[in-house]
């Protein structure tokens, strides 16, 4: 995009715009900071009606105590993220390359994109009854394998559409000249095509990883919680109406949010691309 010039001669307007942005920044950050404050607050002081702050690591010590399940759940979430993201990338890059470059009929391409599009639109909850019986039949209920597959399925539509968009920009002659040089199809794909689509694939990878890390519904309904569950389900278990453990809850919230926010800062460009093209997921 061409660089935009600031409109000149409207200083008051720009002050108002600046105030709106500052307000938005405060509204965005204050709730997150309050969670961090509660997480670092001594449990006794959390329930005190006064404004007081006693710094302590007690809440973090509690959630990572040797007998706590959170360590296992963090590991579960990490395994889930790595496996589901890898699977999504492999399946989507092969398929979208093929659909984009290997002369499929328009009807086939349209049919696959329609399935992908529908899967983006349909609320996952409505498919849960069918998925539940499916996972029972495959004996995958309550396993990480089942969650890996489900997360892959529901992230594939965005991945295929986004990666295909990148492959579509590569001229077909490139593949033809590479094959004339004697390179096999797999080598053309790996050595020529994949590097050209790398920016798209990177955006898909980061976006998918975030989606899987954040996923809650499937973890909730397809595991029994505890040591088989991902971290999001672990947080939910702390929100019991009888006795909410505010300190521990805030600490797990911080542990779950910090990697994502760091990613937002480091890989901002890929995340913005993912959000604007793949926003239907969520």
């Amino acid at each position: 995009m061409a660089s935009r010039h600031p409109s000149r001669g409207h200083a008051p307007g720009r002050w108002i715009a600046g105030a709106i942005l500052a307000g938005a920044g405060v509204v965005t950050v204050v709730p997150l900071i309050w969670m961090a404050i509660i997480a670092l607050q001594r449990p006794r002081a959390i329930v005190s009606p006064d404004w007081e702050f006693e710094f302590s690591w007690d809440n973090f010590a509690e959630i990572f105590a040797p007998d706590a399940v959170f360590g296992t759940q963090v590991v579960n979430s990490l395994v889930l993220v790595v496996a589901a993201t890898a699977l999504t990338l492999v399946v989507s890059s092969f398929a979208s390359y093929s659909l984009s470059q290997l002369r499929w009929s328009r009807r086939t391409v349209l049919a696959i994109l329609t399935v992908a599009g529908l899967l983006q639109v349909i609320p996952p909850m409505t498919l849960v009854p069918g998925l539940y019986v499916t996972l029972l039949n495959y004996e995958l209920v309550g396993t990480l394998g089942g969650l890996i597959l489900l997360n892959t399925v529901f992230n594939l539509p965005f991945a295929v559409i986004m990666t295909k968009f990148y492959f579509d920009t590569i001229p077909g002659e490139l593949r033809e000249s590479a094959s004339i040089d004697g390179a096999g199809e797999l080598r053309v794909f790996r050595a020529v095509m994949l590097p050209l689509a790398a920016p798209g694939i990177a955006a898909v990878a980061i976006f998918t990883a975030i989606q899987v890390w954040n996923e809650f519904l499937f973890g909730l309904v397809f595991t029994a919680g505890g040591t088989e569950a991902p971290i999001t389900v672990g947080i939910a278990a702390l929100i019991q109406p009888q006795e909410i453990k505010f300190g521990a809850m805030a600490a797990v919230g911080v542990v779950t949010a910090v990697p994502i926010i760091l990613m937002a800062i480091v890989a901002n460009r890929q995340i913005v691309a993912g959000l604007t093209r793949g926003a239907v997921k969520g």
Partner: protein
Amino acid sequence: MTTRLDTAPRTAPAVTTSTARRPFPWFKYLSVAPLAAVFAGLVAYPVGLLVWMAFGRVRLVAGEFQWESVGLDNFIRMLDDETFVVSLRNSAVFITATVLLTLVLGIVLALATDRVVTAQRFAQNLIIWPAIVAPVVISVVWLLILSPQIGLLNRVLVSLGADPQAWLGDNIGAMASIIVVDVWHWTPIVFLFVYTALRGIDTSVLEAASVDGASYLRQVRHIILPLLTPAIAGAAAIRLIMGVKAFDEMYLLTFGGPGTATTVITIYLRSVFFDSFEYGYGAALSITVVALVLAVLLLSFAVRSLIRRTSRGF
């Protein structure tokens, strides 16, 4: 994307003759096979099961599903199901409010960011945080604000001398709360959408307008907003779909309560399936909801093309 696909010259005569001599294109088929297998085994098969379950009474006996045909009973039962009607109404209220509010706030933020050049990096970074943090964490964040005992909001109210409020414990307060949480969560998506489109607008149009002496607000109304209409419509459609899907925050903050005050469709589906174990009825409800979503989308497409056709007529 589709236009690119439509217009791409795919067949050259010389190539067509040479394909006849080529060996069978293994790679072409194998590369799509995993995607096809996943779609068949984990989309088509479950959807088939869902339809099958919807026409039966399904019970889980010793880990095996037993199915017994009941015809259309599950669908007929829906007509007398008050909770289903309530959940549809709650979803309608929730979706209308959140879509409108996120659109307005997102557009305002995008325009403001566009005016303050130095803030662009800051805005694209910090303002999107809520949209990428886990919905579960967002629920925790807002529970720590709305909790009657320890919440930030009541602390501030009490410090200012006002009475503490129940927030999530009150019918209207609960619905208002989950709307506020959803707006906080997803305004960044609308912001990004509109801002991206805004950056694509040719600046010379705006410069010409400001040379003509048009005030900024007039430029926004008569030039910028009309140019942004496609992006805003796209953002609205996406927000609508997200509104139907919304589940995590209601499940964690209100569990559909108090009573059924915040029982939206997804919350009701979960309880029919996992609390009442009415698998057949749950499947019938699911199919109805999917049909409703698709109907609304088709309708909006139809309206859009109708508007386009009539505006071309002028």
